[in-house]
């Protein structure tokens, strides 16, 4: 599977939760124990870049490929 949202760097993540809060596809969750955000449902990522653009510490990298590639029109 290609990865759309590729990684949330745990060393950089400051646990602010803004990515988890804003994800429009419910892809990102917050781990209460480690106090870090993590990628839980990458298949549903629509590559909107909300999380990467919002992250205050640049911990997130989104690749431009979808998790579930769509059948092309041609």
């Amino acid at each position, binding site marked *: 599977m290609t990865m759309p949202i590729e990684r949330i760097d745990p060393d950089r993540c400051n646990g602010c939760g803004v990515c988890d809060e804003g994800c429009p596809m419910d892809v990102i969750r917050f781990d209460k124990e480690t106090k870090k955000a993590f990628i839980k449902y990458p298949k*549903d990522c*629509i590559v909107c870049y909300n999380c990467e653009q919002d992250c205050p510490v640049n911990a997130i990298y989104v690749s*431009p490929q979808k998790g*579930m590639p*769509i059948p092309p*029109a*041609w």
Partner: protein
Amino acid sequence: MERRIKTDVLVIGGGLAGCFAAVRARELNAEVILVEKNYVGKTGSSHYARDFMVFKEEWGDNFDEWMQQFSQIGEYLADRRWDEILLRESYPRFRDLISWGEPFYLKNGEVGFPVPGQEPYRLALRKTKYRRHALLSKFGARHKMLIARRKVLGSGCNILDRVMITDLMEKEGRVAGAVGFHTRTGDFYFIEAKATVVSTGGLGFRSARYGIQFNAGEGMTMGYRAGAKLTGMEFGRGMYVVKACDTVVINGPVAEIGNRRDRVTNGNGEEFLDDIPHIPTNIQWAIEFHKGRGPIYHEPYGIDREAYREQLKRYDETAEGPWITMLDRAGLDIFNDRFEQYMAFTGTFLTGGLLIDKNCETNVHGLFAAGDASGTNYTGPTYAVLGSGMAGASVTGYRAGEHAAVFAQKVPPIRIDDADITRYSQHVLGPLRRKSGFRPHHVLMRIQQTLFPYEMRIVMHGKRLQAGLTMIEFFRDQFLPNLWASDLHDLRNAHEVRSMILGAEVMLRTALFRTESRGWFYREDYPFRDDKNWLKWVFVKSEGGEMKVWAEAVPEEYQGDKSLPYEVRYPVQYQKE
């Protein structure tokens, strides 16, 4: 856990239309709850949109010209009642946004708050022989919906984030609220409301890029199941996608840079469009491919990227997406290399949805609709004016909120009993209670495989539409009763595909019904406009468990001057016309 809540006005869907509805209803002293399956402030097509259409005579806009543009580009299916409302009310809503603290681009290129009378930066696109482009305001800040959220909360409305509404509750011939679940906690929500506004966006199928991906037409299909009429559902929307990276759509933005002409070629290296963008360009691309002359290439932009550095950076800062960054990451250089493109079918067109009157009320008592979920037919089968989606969301949202609040003051609450709750909870949580069945992702993939090939919804044909419908009916009968959600996240997916299947059925049945071509609606078996039989709107509703489809004539005065020569009446020609 079960949560029962009561309110005067329930607004479902927290994009710009929903925020306007909530704020306006609250201004009229209604108690308001705004429910959103994502997070209000970072969702809705509005979050990803950029332009806001503003009409203002003092700025040199001519009312008759704009009305003519809607009619002509809407190919005489534009509902002129709504066109007039949209034009007249776009400016007051624009002022509302500024009062909320929404910045716009000013004429000097800076971002700020235009004072009354001061004209904001308005983008003037080229005039082509096909289309007089509109003027519009740029409104693309990434935090614009967060500002709307603050306004909604500051007005005293309640917001429920991450609650997905799945069904409207009907009782005694009225919509009495809605039911749903919290996508994180699993709580079952039971919201009793005197009036309900649906502002859930369009019907999408998670196609190529753009915000419509999380919109699965839930509001439209909920409304349909509650007896509401839908209109304009045969019209679909396409996006120009970069083949090697289909999360990037290239249409408007690059064309604005340097205001040059795009060059599109077929597999033989021939240019087959004389000018773009014009109305059925998307269809021409697909027809060119259909005739065996693919692939379709976009020739390199051939501009110096450095020279436009500031302008490109500005695009990267909008929520529309940092598409330059995305292309870089995909290793594509559209400035120097040619690239393959295709038209992706994305879903319903922005004016199709729940039929509303000028108060934004549907035919079902207590149910209102706004934004992309509403059916106004304001531009017919083609996109008339850039920025009209955002203006339309604001104008219909405001009206829906106002009339929902007035309605709520007049009617008594409806008693809902425990038996109703049990019945709805089974429907909402059913897929979660199963231990086996069809996964929502499997069903989604099958829907996409059916709808996305160009020969289904871009170059249409009755036989193929029928074939697609046969498959969708199979999904409906086989997959839906056996949908299995492994967790709450999957339950959300399950309800989305449930909505998509019903929506797809509506779309295909109405497309089969319209036996002509018009605007972006192209039927290979009926390749011409049919003014004699099809200056009509198509409607759908559920009747006795069957999907009833019918057409009604567009009022005579909207039909344009039929004595005009054909090429004047329709500046854009289909091939061999």
